[in-house]
């Protein structure tokens, strides 16, 4: 991570602002990718390690649309999102739904299989190298904010991410659809008894979750590089956000994702030689203290 120091603010100030900014951008990407996983795991109890696959597909779809057809970023994002949502919906109906109620081991193995197959296909189609993101000119370069130079694109990322998150919360808390999901997370049997078609609800939620992951993957293509090993490389981060945030929640993962984004950025800035060890030590301790996550029951 390249960080420019300025004369104006003093080094400490610059460091704090930089870490905050990069950390928030990183945390938002992690949140967009992981929130769908948290909700679907809370709904179906399915241990899905392959959620990162959809983020990767979103990234590939958006990058290809932009680089091949010269489409603008804001046209490519919804298209990529929609395409992956359809893929997710179809996979849920054809494969995932066969494994509900199966053992944790079967679900782990199945989703590992999905990861490996996606890695192979992506490698065969796009090759082994990471895909470069061609940003339009007005999003390239740095912006000067309070005397500190920060990449322009990240501002767009944070603003766009924040808008999506607000929309997501409104849907989850204020609409009938959201109420149905919350009801099914709390007590699936009861939700079915009052006439909620949980099978359809699962499929739609799964599709939405994968769409959000695709959006996160596409938006964050310059934070988490789009390459064939994506779903395996970042799996720890997605799983940690969900486990720490708590299943079936949309607020818990937000807190978890932002904390991890900030802490990871701070660690890499202050102690680059220590890498991510501190974060994982902290996560380890946290999960021992609250195995069901920060919003889960003790």
């Amino acid at each position, binding site marked *: 991570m390249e960080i420019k120091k300025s004369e104006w603010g003093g080094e400490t100030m610059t460091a704090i602002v930089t870490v905050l900014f990069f950390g928030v951008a990183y945390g938002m990407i992690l949140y967009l990718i992981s929130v769908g996983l948290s909700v679907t795991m809370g709904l179906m109890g399915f241990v899905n390690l392959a959620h990162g696959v959809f983020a990767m597909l979103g990234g590939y779809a958006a990058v290809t649309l932009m680089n091949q057809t010269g489409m603008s970023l804001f046209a490519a994002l919804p298209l990529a999102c929609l395409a992956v949502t359809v893929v997710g919906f179809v996979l849920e109906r054809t494969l995932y739904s066969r494994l509900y109620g199966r053992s944790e081991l079967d679900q782990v193995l*199945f989703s*590992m299989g999905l990861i490996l*197959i996606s890695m192979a296909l992506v*490698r065969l189609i796009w090759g082994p190298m990471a895909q470069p993101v061609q940003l339009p000119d007005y999003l390239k370069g740095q912006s000067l904010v309070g005397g500190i130079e920060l990449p322009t694109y990240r501002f767009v990322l944070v603003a766009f991410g924040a808008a999506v998150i607000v929309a997501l919360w409104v849907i989850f808390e204020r609409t009938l659809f959201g109420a149905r999901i919350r009801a099914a997370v709390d007590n699936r049997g009861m939700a079915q008894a009052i006439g909620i078609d949980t099978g359809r609800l699962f499929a739609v939620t799964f599709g939405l979750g994968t769409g959000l992951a695709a959006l996160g993957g596409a938006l964050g293509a310059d934070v988490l590089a789009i390459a064939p090993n994506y779903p395996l490389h970042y799996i*720890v981060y997605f799983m940690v956000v969900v486990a720490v945030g708590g*299943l079936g929640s949309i607020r818990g993962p937000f807190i978890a994702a932002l904390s991890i984004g900030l802490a990871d950025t701070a660690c890499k800035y202050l102690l680059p030689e220590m890498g991510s060890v501190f974060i994982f030590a902290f996560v380890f301790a946290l999960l*021992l203290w609250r195995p069901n996550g920060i919003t889960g029951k003790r």
Partner: protein
Amino acid sequence: MTDRSTAAILLLPPDGVSGTRKALSMSLWLAALAIPTLVPGYTPLANQMVVMILFALSLDLLVGFTGIVTLGHAALFGTGAYTAGILALRLTNDPLITALCGMAAAALVGLVTGSCMLRTKGLAFLVLSLAAAFMLHELANMASSVTGGDDGLQGVSFSPLLGVFEFDFRGHTAFYYSLACLFAAFLLVRRVVNSPFGWSLRGIRENDGRMRAIGCPIYARRLAAYVMSSALAGLAGALQAQTTQFVALNSLSLELSGDVLIMLILGGSGRLYGAFVGVPLFMFAQDLLAKEDPANWYLGQGLILMVMTLFVPGGVLGLVERLRRNLGRGGRR
């Protein structure tokens, strides 16, 4: 293991196995002995298989018999490998002492991480196992003055086994040494899973609530299984270091944890011989598919997993068992 089960492990004979099975397993072991004479060029590959079988067998104790699904088993393999390698470079290069130290170090890591992790279940346990392995991997990468970092530990050499048998370039000593360790480990695991302790592990796998209700100390049993499995994984790691004279950072990686799980599942978990079937199949498939393009091998592995979970639960051995039963020639049970 607070009651008599420890003693029972060592005293009880394995349960009655049909004559054909006994003959089959005996002839398999004897055939293995002949590998260096029959196909000398393949001895190093066979050694590699033996090491991985031992590793997969240790995982079977967790996944197959106790129902503990871990994504970080390579952490223990790598601990054994690095312990043996670092000791050989700095202290002593006696193969038996370093192997024992590798086992002990892995058992210790297993005891420390297991005593924390086994307090949780489900997603939390999975993530903890991932995080623990990830931390060890990062630590080994950082401490490059000791571990060699990304380059791994190179030029690790060991003194002759028992002071007599040198680790020669043909790999015969290495192979027989690994095979002997595997055989000893196999006898131990067979004893353990057929003991009352082993049956209590199966009980915990099937329904831990009921086991608790009938007074089984679940946490202690699971931890005992975890430490035992860790020690065997550590032995496999130490053997890997000794017989290849090299320790790579890869020995702590998530990829290796995934590979060994696939090997076990391919053969069939919870069946003792699953590892013996799965590892050779996996390695042959890898050899066949990875030659052209690594992507083909990912695809192969992914398809194996999908087909196994959707259509062939129980792996190859489970399939054989079901075929026998359907043909009505009376497989056991």
